[in-house]
């Protein structure tokens, strides 16, 4: 751990700690989770010339700190040593992030990745994006920032408000894919009507961010459940 800690320059690490709600260990851990597989990926690509590197996140999923991952990471570093900083900017495709055990079962995983992605095509996460993600989902993040991102996650069409379409997609996410758990159309309508009745303060038919945050701030257990621990 120390080895990689020194590679991720101290100043950068300190800045990351300033800018996120994460501790040093968590940041280093996320280096392993995101970067190590990624570097392994690169290596494989270089060797086989294969275009799509196999996502290797599963290898490290049970114990991201396992010696194997560590060794791999360190093995790879000498060649890449110059570019650790730049590789922090490198993009990790969604599939790899989605296969993380922490996100695997989450119905909003695509949305989460999309919201946090800063790449132009919105199909991959850089290391810093991933840190952002973890920071927002960490235990110590403020409820404000949590609800802000929750809103963006729920806002499926990215138009800045939750309209009926968004809400029904949200319900579908929550009730799962199974046929038996789906709500019928009338139930859906009833449900969304009720929600709008409760939360849509200005009666414009949609829920905007401040209305959303207002509702969320009342919730006793939003902050405790809106977290992901790596």
């Amino acid at each position, binding site marked *: 751990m120390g080895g990689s800690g020194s590679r991720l320059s101290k100043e950068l690490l300190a800045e990351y700690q300033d800018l996120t709600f994460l501790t040093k260990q968590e940041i280093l851990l996320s280096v392993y989770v995101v970067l190590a597989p990624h570097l392994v990926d690169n290596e494989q690509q270089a060797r086989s010339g294969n275009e799509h590197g196999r996502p290797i996140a599963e290898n490290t999923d049970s114990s991201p700190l396992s010696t194997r991952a560590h060794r791999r990471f360190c093995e790879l570093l000498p060649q890449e040593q110059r570019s650790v900083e730049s590789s922090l900017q490198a993009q990790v495709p969604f599939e790899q992030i989605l296969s993380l055990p922490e996100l695997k079962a989450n119905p909003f995983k695509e949305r989460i990745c999309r919201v946090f992605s800063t790449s132009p095509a919105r199909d991959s996460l850089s290391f810093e994006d991933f840190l952002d993600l973890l920071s927002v989902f960490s235990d110590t993040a403020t409820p404000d920032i949590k609800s802000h991102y929750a809103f963006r996650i729920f806002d499926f069409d*990215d138009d800045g408000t939750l309209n009926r379409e968004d809400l029904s997609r949200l319900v579908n996410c929550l009730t*799962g894919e*199974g046929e038996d758990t789906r709500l019928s159309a009338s139930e859906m309508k009833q449900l969304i009507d009720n929600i709008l009745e*409760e939360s849509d303060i200005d009666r414009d038919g949609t829920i905007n961010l401040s209305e959303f*945050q207002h509702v969320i701030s009342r919730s*006793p257990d939003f902050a405790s459940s809106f977290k992901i*621990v790596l």
Partner: protein
Amino acid sequence: MSHQVNDLKEEAQGRVKGRARSGSPRTGDRLGRRSSSKQTLKAEGTPGRRGAQRSQKERAGGSPSPGSPRRKQTGRRRHREELGEQERSKAERTCEGRRKRDERASFKEHTAAPKKEKEIPRKEEKSKRQKKPRSSSLASSASGGESLSEEKLARILERVEEKKQLIATMRSKPWPMAKKLTELREAQEFVEKYEGALGKGKGKRLYAYKMLMAKKWVKFKRDFDNFKTQCIPWEMKIKDIESHFGSSVASYFIFLRWMYGVNLVLFGLIFGLVIIPEVLMGMPYGSIPRKTVPRAEEEKAMDFSVLWDFEGYIKYSALFYGYYNNQRTIGWLRYRLPMAYFMVGVSVFGYSLMIIIRSMASNTQGSTGEGESDNFTFSFKMFTSWDYLIGNSETADNKYASITTSFKESIVDEQESNKEENIHLTRFLRVLANFLIICCLCGSGYLIYFVVKRSQQFSKMQNVSWYERNEVEIVMSLLGMFCPPLFETIAALENYHPRTGLKWQLGRIFALFLGNLYTFLLALMDDVHLKLANEETIKNITHWTLFNYYNSSGWNESVPRPPLHPADVPRGSCWETAVGIEFMRLTVSDMLVTYITILLVDFLRACFVRFMNYCWCWDLEAGFPSYAEFDISGNVLGLIFNQGMIWMGSFYAPGLVGINVLRLLTSMYFQCWAVMSSNVPHERVFKASRSNNFYMGLLLLVLFLSLLPVAYTIMSLPPSFDCGPFSGKNRMYDVLQETIENDFPTFLGKIFAFLANPGLIIPAILLMFLAIYYLNSVSKSLSRANAQLRKKIQVLREVEKSHKSVKGKATARDSEDTPKSSSKNAIQLQLTKEETTPPSASKSQAMDKKAQGPRTSNSASRTTLPASGHLPISRPPGIRPDSGHAPSQTHPWRSASGKSAQRPPR
């Protein structure tokens, strides 16, 4: 306000620009921006105008006109709130000219930003440019050692402080990391550059030193935090469980871990201040009667069966009260052991009380009233029901199912909320269930009383069987094992929501355990009184024996007689040790029963189901036996009551805490293993919510209840005459008086005597009552003020609604009077802002008001907006719900994209 009027005049011209601006790109939020710009480009007429109005509003506060410092100041602040600091920082970047531009951002700004967008920075740039030479000259003049004008200095100081604040709050800004990084570096550079300019002459060095120390301190704090998180044990285990079973099961393990920490501290206290000094410096084993196994028990003292009952050598060891000597000081340190024993006993309670209350307080911080939750049942179900910690697909499936059912249930509830046909049946069933449970409780209480009485008879008889000796423990454990499932069965009648059900269940088991414990205590107390009554006679016997021994004839008078061997001295029953042994046995048997239950019920059942499923006629896994669920309530209460026993017993058995630490440690590993190996996630996965505080509340209650008997024994029972640190005293607390009299100067003794005077204590208590009364009335008046503010907002809402209806009737074209109305609204907004700024109006209150206003004026809106579904919902710009408050919530992304929601009229 003159600003606003000016801006409103500009509004007409600014329409086109404003529209463009509303859709103007800003760094970092591409999506919202893109869509909104699309929308606004499509939109003509009203929405565009609205955008203009809004931007006008922003500028009204946000654009500083050059030269006036006050304006600039407020402008800056407002600007930060409204625009999320983006423009400001950009402007600074350009004007200060010492930073390479963020390439992407600047590129976009230059290419895509329309005219209006550029205007504001330019304005600011101008103002900043004017300022810049000043500030740089400031720096140089400061370095030259000249005195600065107060105003300039104050301005720099303010900006430095602002930057520092920005650095501190950067992490809670919803920006992407790259932006945060550049902002951070910029701010840091600025602070570093200008920090030195502050302070003059000699003060300068001191200031620099102070800054350096502050930096070091921050770094140290961060390192320490990192270290602390590294020290938290079992993080991975708990995380694993969390992802498999959801947060409710994990909350038990977090509670267990917390408990372990508390016990570790208690153990350190007792072990370090009582047991270690006694072992190192006290008289060794066998030197005096209380430290020696009596002759009659000597043969069996090392047998395992005897040791298992904490008799024999264990009874006469430092683990129990009776072993300690009443010597005032021991060893070359002259350590005052009796005093230390007493103080440790008190501080165990003190520490526990403090830590519980502290964690309760920290849990309640940031909580909002629970009464509010009724208003948002659906929204909560919708937005907060997913547990993001779930990482296991099976649990996720359960969660899907439970969310679906809860949706359906609440829909049905909503539809049938008026029908009350079932309510009588439900009520009847609930009353019935409570009746049954009370019967169970009484029965178990009686059973325990009966058994304890019987055991007292057994204790007088000789050679009783193993069962008869351990009857009390067995019966108590069995009751603890079978009653909770029974209660759960009965509770199924009641048909509560699982979270409510859990609380009821917890309350009932709590009552059961409490009843059992107190019955046990009462019976024990009877025993103690019996022993105390016998003590006098035993004391006489002892004296008589010793007297006889030394004065008996038939011994050579010239040689002094060797002292009687301590094992032969007759001695009292030492009720304190007896009580300690009872608690010790109860703890151990409780632990064993828990482990055996887990092994038998959970593990064997799981094995059976798993392996017999291949050759069974029905599906065992899905059908009848199935796997066990983790019993949260039972486990939590078991833990709490165990802790209660530790608190009660630790005064009489200092070793009890050590045993408890071992117990918690093993049960952490054992239960983690058992949960992961043989339990299944709850069928209705529900979140832990605030149950942590509920646990804490129960724990506090138990602490108080276990404090009572200990305090009673300390204050009102005489200690045994021949064992323990307080032997020979009339009451245990006499040790305090003794220490004050002998070891403190006399005036301190007088002060203490004065403090203990009822004449001082009663006024103190009165004062406390007065303080409580005062605080209570203050909180009442604050809440009244809150309600008043709410009402005001409500009125404001209604005004707004009427405007809305006017607008709804009007055509989409904007008419002459709209600026007027919006200006009126703006004035009103100003007023409300002034009203809401007093300290009592915290953010949550502001939110409250926002909620309350429309909620109550719903009906009005419905009547005034007949077809609000398709009408353009045109909010007057002045009363944007988020413009008046909550600065942290407004940010470029939101303000850029919020407008897109307002659709163009047909």
